[in-house]
């Protein structure tokens, strides 16, 4: 089943084209890596699918639903920058999400906070950068969404917690959901990816299954990335 479909998605910021004619399809039950150099349009693509930006042209659909209120119910989005009010306590952020999303599970969030040793009574502004990122990721992954959009989910997180988070991603998402992850830490996540999308200058350069590339090239996705995008 096709979970996400983008048709000719284009986004211009003034005269600058951030994304041009992107068409792609993602089936259900897949973990897809969105990889590309800085400024290639990854965040723009995720924001368009999340419904935070309006496309200049083209359209995206999540489970046949055009981007809008209906699609936002199905999509759980993790922005690449902190989005929670610093004055909030972690506990309050959980209430906030619970109030906002029908599919949010507070138990699941508390469970993960506990595992990562984060005190729910802390104020978000008092947390370190990495811990604040963990909290935000926990909130995103505690929803039972159909599509998760994770923009740089593990950048500021220590390697041990990274492993925990990856395991959480594997065990938490249900078989019909898909995950689109944008990241630069390719070697950390490539074992959990099914497919990769290489994006450059706002266009898709390749979209293929990880195993087939590794078999063809005899290299890891990480080294292929370094070759393809050599500066």
């Amino acid at each position, binding site marked *: 089943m096709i979970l996400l479909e983008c048709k000719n998605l284009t986004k211009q910021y003034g005269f600058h084209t951030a994304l041009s004619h992107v068409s792609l399809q993602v089936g259900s039950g897949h973990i897809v890596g969105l990889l590309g150099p800085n400024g290639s349009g990854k965040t723009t693509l995720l924001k368009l699918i999340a419904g935070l930006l309006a496309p200049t042209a083209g359209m995206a659909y999540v489970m046949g639903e055009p981007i809008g209120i209906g699609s936002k119910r199905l999509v759980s989005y993790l922005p690449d920058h902190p989005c929670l009010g610093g004055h909030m306590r972690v506990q309050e952020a959980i209430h906030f999400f619970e109030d906002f999303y029908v599919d949010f599970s507070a138990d699941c969030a508390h469970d993960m906070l506990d595992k990562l040793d984060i005190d729910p009574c802390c104020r978000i502004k008092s947390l370190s950068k990495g811990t604040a990122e963990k909290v935000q990721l926990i909130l995103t992954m505690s929803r039972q969404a159909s599509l998760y959009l994770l923009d740089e989910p593990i950048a500021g997180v220590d390697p041990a917690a990274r492993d925990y988070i990856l395991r959480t991603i594997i065990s938490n998402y249900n078989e019909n959901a898909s995950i689109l992850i944008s990241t630069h830490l390719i070697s950390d996540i490539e074992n959990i990816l099914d497919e990769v999308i290489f994006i450059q200058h706002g266009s898709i350069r390749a979209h293929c299954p990880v*195993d087939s590339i*590794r078999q063809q090239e005899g290299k890891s996705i990480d080294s292929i990335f370094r070759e393809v995008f050599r500066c």
Partner: protein
Amino acid sequence: MPWNLDSDRPIFIQIIDRIQADIIAGCYQPGDKLPSVRELAQDASVNPNTMQKALSELERTGLVYSQRTSGRFITEDREMIRALREQQGQQIALHFLENMKKLGYGKDEILALLTQLLETALHNQPHSTETHGHSAETHTHSAETHVYSAETHTHSAETHVYSAETHGHSITPHAQPYNAAVHAQPEQKQQHKSSAQESLAEACKITTWRIP
């Protein structure tokens, strides 16, 4: 046990290799139930779809079979496991020979070296072969002992090479018998590792398999 997946080969192939090795080593006995796809995927930190693909492939070869509702099981065809073991042993041996050839070793040199190593290995692990092959039941069990002892041998092989380095080709006849618990730390193996030593280590594994 960590899965130690390389980054340059398709993951599902590495998973297949790993599960096959576990079956040969007796970690999974014939007829045993495999953990669920999700559990295995989590354990190996890989995508569940990849794990699924690997298991389907194993199923296709017949090494694993699935029962519709109750999960996947290891084949009870011991003959098949034995054949697989033989095939893998041969592969490792060929690989070893290739590496030795690269180092310029001739046939006699290889044979002499192996004989020497084997003697030291046997000296250190006199009981490893005794349990072998009494009945079908002990057979698989002894396979486990074998691999286990092969590891110990590997270690002794390294000690051997190491001492050869310091004393110029003299052999240490009474290499310390190493205890498996000590051996379990892979860091110890990493030190002073050269391609020759790797080949030697592999040689030892092979030769212990061939002892019976």
